């Protein structure tokens, strides 16, 4: 697909999402959606440098905060409309990205990672000491109630949501364009072997500087509307840990080799965090993200997209068929249920003084582990995985039934748990079908996959 076509298709999908959110007629949908979208931009930006070039940026929060603080600065001196603010934020962060890259990228790659970590601390120090933008006290940026665009008047939150949607589409299109251009091949050459790339005439320093600048600029753009979104910006929220860790975890969990990975990772993780922050404490939810990050880099280095690709290559070499797509969907469902189970289990354990709640919490955690194991096992074609998945889905049936029985007054709960029952029944039926069990029976295939995913030892 040509990039222009892709851009307009993505824009159409975005517009459809906006329209769907309008139907809900609930301001919170836009509020949560904005968070998800700005993580899509951050993850995509991180991936341009981290995934394509193989250079790790730990200072995403610094670039994000630079964008946010340039907005605060302009808000005090000369207020501009959001699209211009996004451009200014992008310029500022892009310049800092270029500078950091220029000073550190001539050396070994690890120095860049360390420098970005330190950069976050130092920029925070500067902002804390800079009274004009609020210093340690923070700054208020009052969000207008609504804005008139042409003939329509929409609420400001919807306006921010729409701006971030356009920005996300632009970021994704750029990432996709890079992937398929000479630039992207140069990046990939740097990632695989910088010395060899240099020897082949790839202008490595220039390409790396382009990557740091682009990546920093998109992070700054993601941060620019943030003060209007949050209303009150203080250094510890703009430089917050969740930005540094999420912008790494999302691409790593989704998959770093293509633009799909960060998108998938950001959509999954950000949505889950929206739910988890409401259900349990925000620190616990960050802990889950950290554990997922470590788990994925150890067990599934190419992320969810990598797992799915490997699975398709072995299970359906001639293109995706109904069977393999169904298994993939089940596996993703198991992944989501697993994380959700951890969230609910921890919530029950944390709040529970009663024995019943403790038991429910432990049961939910056990179920979550089974779910996560079956997600991993099903996609890496482990022979044990259908049994584990059957156990997980089987166990979820009585739990869902019990939940309906205990709380049948709320319609939402009944519908959700009913859906769980239907999906679990479908999963059990699916996993016991002849063609699916045959897929996992042949150990030769499983061994092949294991050898492929782990790579050859030197």
């Amino acid at each position: 697909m040509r990039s222009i076509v892709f851009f307009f298709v993505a824009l159409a999908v975005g517009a459809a999402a906006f329209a769907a959110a309008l139907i809900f007629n609930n301001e919170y949908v836009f509020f949560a959606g904005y968070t998800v979208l700005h993580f899509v931009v951050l993850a995509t930006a991180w991936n341009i440098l981290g995934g394509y070039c193989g250079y790790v940026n730990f200072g995403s929060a610094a670039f994000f905060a630079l964008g946010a603080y340039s907005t605060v600065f302009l808000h005090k001196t000369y207020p501009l409309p959001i699209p211009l603010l996004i451009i200014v934020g992008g310029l500022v962060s892009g310049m800092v990205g270029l500078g950091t890259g220029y000073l550190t990228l001539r050396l070994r790659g690890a120095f860049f990672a360390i420098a970005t970590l330190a950069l976050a601390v130092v920029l925070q120090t500067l902002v804390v000491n800079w009274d004009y933008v609020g210093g340690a006290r923070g700054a208020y940026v009052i969000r207008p109630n609504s804005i008139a665009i042409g003939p329509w008047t929409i609420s400001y939150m919807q306006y921010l949501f729409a701006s971030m949607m356009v920005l996300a589409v632009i970021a994704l299109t750029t990432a996709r364009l890079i992937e398929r251009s000479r630039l992207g091949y140069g990046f990939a050459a740097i990632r695989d072997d910088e010395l060899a790339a240099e020897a082949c005439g790839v202008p490595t320093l220039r390409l790396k500087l382009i990557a740091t600048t682009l990546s920093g600029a998109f992070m700054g753009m993601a941060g620019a509307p943030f003060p209007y979104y949050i209303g009150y910006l203080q250094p510890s929220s703009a430089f917050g840990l969740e930005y540094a860790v999420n912008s790494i975890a999302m691409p790593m969990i989704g998959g770093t080799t293509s633009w799909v990975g960060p998108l998938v990772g950001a959509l999954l993780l950000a949505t889950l965090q929206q739910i988890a922050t409401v259900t349990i404490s925000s620190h616990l939810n960050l802990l889950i993200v950290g554990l997922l990050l470590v788990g994925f880099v150890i067990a599934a280095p190419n992320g969810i997209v990598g797992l799915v690709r490997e699975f398709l290559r072995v299970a359906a070499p001639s293109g995706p068929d109904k069977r393999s797509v169904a298994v993939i969907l089940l596996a993703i469902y198991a992944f989501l249920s697993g994380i959700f189970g951890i969230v609910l289990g921890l919530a029950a354990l944390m709040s529970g003084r009663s024995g019943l709640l403790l038991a429910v919490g432990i049961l939910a955690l056990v179920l979550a582990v089974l779910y996560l194991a079956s997600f991993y096992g099903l996609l890496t074609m482990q022979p044990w995985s259908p049994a584990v998945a059957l156990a997980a889905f089987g166990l979820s049936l009585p739990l869902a039934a019990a939940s309906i029985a205990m709380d049948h007054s709320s319609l939402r709960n009944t519908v959700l748990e009913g859906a769980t029952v239907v999906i679990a029944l479908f999963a059990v039926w699916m996993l016991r079908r002849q063609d699916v069990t045959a897929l996992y029976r042949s150990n030769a295939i499983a061994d092949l996959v294991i050898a492929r995913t782990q790579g050859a030892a030197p």
Partner: protein
Amino acid sequence: MSMDLLFNAVIAGLLLGGFYVAVTVGVSISFGILDIVNIAHPAFIILGSYIAYIVNQRLGLDPIVTSILVLPIFYALGALIYEVYYHSFEKRGQEALRGLAFFFGLLFITEVLLILVFGVDYRYVQAPYIEKTLRLGFVDLPLRMLVPCVVSLLMLAALQLFLSRTFTGRAIMAVSQDQLALQLMAVNPIRIKRIAFGISIATAAMAGAFLIVIGPVEPSVGREYIGRVFAICVLGGLQSLPGTVIAAMLLGVIENITSTFYGPSWAPAVAFGFLLLTLAFRPAGLLGR
């Protein structure tokens, strides 16, 4: 600018630098010698601080004695982490991107776990020497700075002796230069690296105790040390322990003068400026080859 104030700032900076030696020596081993970019090192230091804090609260034991007692535990933890790192990343040649993300994850998990268990309040310890100060003429030597500085220099001397005199120590220095030659001497380089990484994490236990002796600690303090630690390590010439001492003292003095004359909130920025200047002008470090 009075001479007394300046002189005192320099002395206090030297004492602070002595403490920075303990903080950095672990990274000099892991990053400088083994080429493992362990950015989670400050998190282990904070972990050491909290262990010293718990033992001090419950049993009233001296934090530095505690840290010596828990050295074997930290050594085992380090050896375990190296095993995971080796099998998951180093063996597959993926240490650059995913290995870094792994350590970042560890840093993050440790910090969040500490926040969950202890909250974000500042914690401190009690020891007889913390509130005393030696006075030599117009020079103040607060014991809470002097004791960590002296013990940390002793630790460094012991490590330097170990690395230069014993067979294992020399094997550790050799593993960074030529693994194959080491194998020809019938030494398993993986085992040597595991030992070295264990030692580097063990030093974090001591550094953690020093940190909480010097001042109160809260879980996110660790991140401020990342810039400092790597700045010192790079300026010191990565593998050279004497270079680390000089660089640590230098940074301690500069930081202390900055916070004495411009206010303490500027101190964290000094390390980064230091790091960037080093990388730009003298990437081989002070005593580098």
